[in-house]
């Protein structure tokens, strides 16, 4: 059977679905294809929750074992930069969600604008993060530093977790920015149909997840230990 024949059968079985170049030959119709793509990404996000969950579990155990050491160590993080970054990510979450909505309405200009805004905010986030890392290095706040400023041994545990959490989150931001970049380029080239493809929706979901993780990293690393 050729691909064309297969697609024909898929259409007749799928009933009313319009033919679209975006429809892969093993799906009956676009509705099925979109459901598969969305579900696939949600399942992937569930695995991501558990991936970060391993780190959060380590944080939970040590914060319960050494509450004082953790409060003391957490007071050393750059709370201003962390909070600005939260604002940046929340705003980019809004622009990404609107980009998904615009793509559903086939508004190409709007999609391109909103993706560009999202990318811009993400880049500023990474810039702020880089500046923060530079400050941390200046303060010798990395566990292998001979001049590590905090005395309690668990402070080094906290700072190990700090580098792991923010580092992994930054890697996720980078992946998200790359994805948005490719989609922006493709939208500009008009190489795919905004309504028939799941691309923008998928990228939006992933970006939402990156947002989500930061919402927990922010209080755990930056807001902790401020009251004392």
């Amino acid at each position: 059977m050729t691909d064309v024949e297969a697609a024909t059968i898929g259409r007749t079985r799928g009933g009313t679905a319009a033919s679209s170049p975006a429809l892969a030959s093993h799906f009956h119709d676009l509705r099925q294809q979109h459901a598969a793509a969305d579900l696939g990404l949600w399942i992937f996000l569930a695995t991501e929750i558990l991936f970060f969950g391993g780190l959060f579990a380590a944080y939970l155990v040590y914060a319960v074992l050494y509450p004082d050491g953790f409060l003391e160590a957490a007071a050393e993080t750059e709370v201003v930069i962390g909070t600005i970054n939260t604002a940046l990510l929340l705003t980019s979450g809004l622009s990404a969600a609107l980009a998904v909505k615009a793509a559903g309405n086939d508004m190409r200009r709007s999609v391109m604008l909103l993706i560009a805004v999202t990318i811009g905010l993400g880049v500023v986030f990474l810039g702020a993060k880089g500046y923060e890392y530079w400050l941390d290095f200046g303060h010798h706040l990395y566990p292998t530093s001979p001049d590590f400023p905090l005395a309690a041994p668990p402070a080094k545990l906290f700072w190990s977790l700090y580098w792991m959490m923010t580092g992994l989150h930054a890697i996720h931001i980078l992946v998200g920015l790359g994805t948005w970049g490719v989609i922006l380029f493709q939208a500009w080239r008009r190489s795919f149909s905004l309504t028939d493809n799941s691309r923008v929706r998928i990228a939006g979901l992933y970006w939402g997840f990156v947002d989500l993780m930061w919402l927990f990293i922010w209080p755990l690393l930056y807001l902790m230990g401020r009251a004392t």
Partner: protein
Amino acid sequence: MSHATQHRNDEDLLTADVRNAADRKALLPPLMPELGVFVALFALAATSVLVAFWSAFGGLAILACLAIAVVMAALVMIFFMHLRSAMAVMTLASLAGVVWLAILFGLTMADYLTRPGEIGSSIQTPRQAETEAEAAN
């Protein structure tokens, strides 16, 4: 897929046909409810900062901040990640992640919270162990 979803999709198709080209060239899609949610998120984030710096709570402020984070996360998932209009199985998938996380946390803490002595006292750095051994000698 349920009949309701199918029905909604048919409606979408219909409105897509009716929608004129000028609409597609607009610079922004309809802003609600996302903008409202965004304002709520900012308000929650500001509350979180205030709580964190308010000394009345002491070290426990973090618990309040995390509770606020849970609300914010729910808003992000429901509105920014469109769980509101997604199939039930996707909500189920995301909940599975959270439930299994709870299993991981719960059973791990079942060990740490029930160890003998004060919490944290069963863990010794090698140096502490050495000093204790010397003191015993």
